[in-house]
């Protein structure tokens, strides 16, 4: 038998085995989500359901995924007129941040049961990490990191843009490398005390690599941004991001989102600051405040504005 035939056989086997499972899952539950009220779960059925069976709370077992032995008290179930959507109302408000497992013993008399998990969409969670690092926990205005470089390169808009973009590039690459190092080398071998050295080493490596690559590939770009590369190392944020993702045990995409948000937030902060500072050059500022002091006060005002994002929760 050649490889083509083998592949065909394997494919048909998978289809044969997988189809009933797919069919069953699809035949019973079409969708599930948390309801509008804090104590509701809404489930959409894909096929025929019996009203009395579905509306009987005794047929349901619901628990938070981390506490499978504690069943949540279900008050009532209401099937909508379209015979497809049922709303489960609970006695107490649900903690929508946790994933809940719902098991229905049967959907119709003598029929099959179904079990599914209700949780906030993962993409939403990833996006919330991104927005968190970008706005809510902006590394410059809320976490006060990377300030030395921040004040140094925020005098003009083009330096700000250059620094911001270079920094985002370096931090995304080094964060991903740090994640790999942490997951596959530091953690399994108990070498956590080498965290600081390894992370900053990876950053130096990334900076060196970006420097060499940029020099060869795009000399024009290098002339514009190359000088900022050295400053990236002196940026507190560059080591804060790997430390955070190691501390919180983020997975790969979560780390990526964190790094992207951190870089983006830095770029945003720089851009906002430089726009203001360019205008301040023309303003009438007292002698003692000229230069860095007034920049600090302006930064403080930005930080005050960003404080408004505190506690914001999307998804």
């Amino acid at each position, binding site marked *: 038998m050649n490889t083509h035939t083998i592949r065909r056989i394997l494919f048909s086997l998978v289809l044969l085995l997988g189809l009933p499972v797919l069919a069953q899952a699809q035949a019973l539950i079409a969708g599930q989500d948390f309801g509008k009220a804090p104590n509701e779960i809404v489930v959409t059925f894909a096929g025929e359901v019996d009203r009395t069976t579905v509306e009987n709370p005794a047929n349901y077992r619901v628990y938070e995924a981390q*506490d*499978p*032995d*504690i069943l949540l008290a279900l008050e009532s179930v209401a099937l909508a007129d379209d015979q497809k959507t049922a709303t489960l109302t609970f006695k107490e408000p649900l*903690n929508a941040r946790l994933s809940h497992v719902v098991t229905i013993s049967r959907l119709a008399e003598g029929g099959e049961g179904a079990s599914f998990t209700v949780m906030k969409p993962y993409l939403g969670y990833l996006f919330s990490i991104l927005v968190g690092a970008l706005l809510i926990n902006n590394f410059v205005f809320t976490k006060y990191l990377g300030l030395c470089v921040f004040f140094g390169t925020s005098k003009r808009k083009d330096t700000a843009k250059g620094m911001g973009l270079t920094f985002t590039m370096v931090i995304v690459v080094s964060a991903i490398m740090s994640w790999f190092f942490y997951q596959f080398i530091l953690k399994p071998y108990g070498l956590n*005390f*080498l965290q600081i*050295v390894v992370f900053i080493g990876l950053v130096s490596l990334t900076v060196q690599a970006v420097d060499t690559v940029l020099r060869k590939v795009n000399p024009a770009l290098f002339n514009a941004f190359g000088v900022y590369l050295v400053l990236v190392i002196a940026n507190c944020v560059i080591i804060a991001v790997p430390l955070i993702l190691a501390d919180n045990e983020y997975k790969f995409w979560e780390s990526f989102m964190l790094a992207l948000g951190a870089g983006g937030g830095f770029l945003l902060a720089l851009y906002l600051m430089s726009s203001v500072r360019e205008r301040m050059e023309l303003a009438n500022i007292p002698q003692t405040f000229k230069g860095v002091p007034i920049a600090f006060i302006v930064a403080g005002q930005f930080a005050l504005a960003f404080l408004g994002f505190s506690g914001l929760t999307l998804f």
Partner: protein
Amino acid sequence: MKDILTIIFRLTVACLLAGLVMGTVFIATNKAKKHNIHVNEQKVMLSLLGYSAKNPAPESVAMHEVYRYLVGEGEAMAMGYLLPLRDGSFSFVTIDLAGGFVAQTPVALAAEKAGEPEARTPAIAAALGADKPLRYADQTIVVTDGGKRTAYLLPGKFPGFKTFIGAILALDQNFSILGLEIMEHEEDPGLGAEIVQGYFKNQFKGKPLETVKKLEVVKTPLPEEYLKALEAEKSGLGAEEVASIQKQYQDNDIYALTGATISSRSVTNGVKAMVKKFAYRLAILDRVIAEQHIATPF
């Protein structure tokens, strides 16, 4: 070429030297670091129970650690408890989700190692058989005085206004709250961070189980006399006065912190959930221990 080789050589030597220095310091200090963490935890737990440097715990008081695990997955999931036995050995009791006893397995583990997850979890996995997935859930400390149960200590973590709040809750034998200690949090300083202050934390003291189950947060100012009782060290009130005022407010809801309603609610809901779940689970565990005549020291 020679240049690059020199660079690589010198860099490697520098890295090795640095690694050597750090490794040596690590080996020298790691034990002391772990000891410090342990001592700190002990101090917090003893103070929650009412003991301090001036009022040390008597010899008859002992703390027994119970670790809860989730065994298996899907339909076959069960709850497992690592219990210390009177003779110093350990036993792992598996209870199914409906509360029925499944099995009791002896676990080979040294008493000092029980506190370290790297030693404890593999020992349990070895005793159960490698095919069952094992997940650590949480830890409870049962405090006995002369063999009789006097208190329970529950370390726990729940979501706060910002990220998580880590706390240790102390309950007496009837599940009334003895005390609450906030161990870690990332709340705003001056606002949410005030949850560590006496006038918030101590409101939980003395509340019976039935009150805690329905505990809510009210946004009214703290009455003057209650504030004095909650901050007894500052206001200098006598122990009897404090006790009588606390009894008055025992069944009240929690007064929220000014400007930190969400943090106050997070802590209240977190404590509520911890107490409810613990009371439910302990009832099941106690029934199984009694039925199976397991020789626990409590």
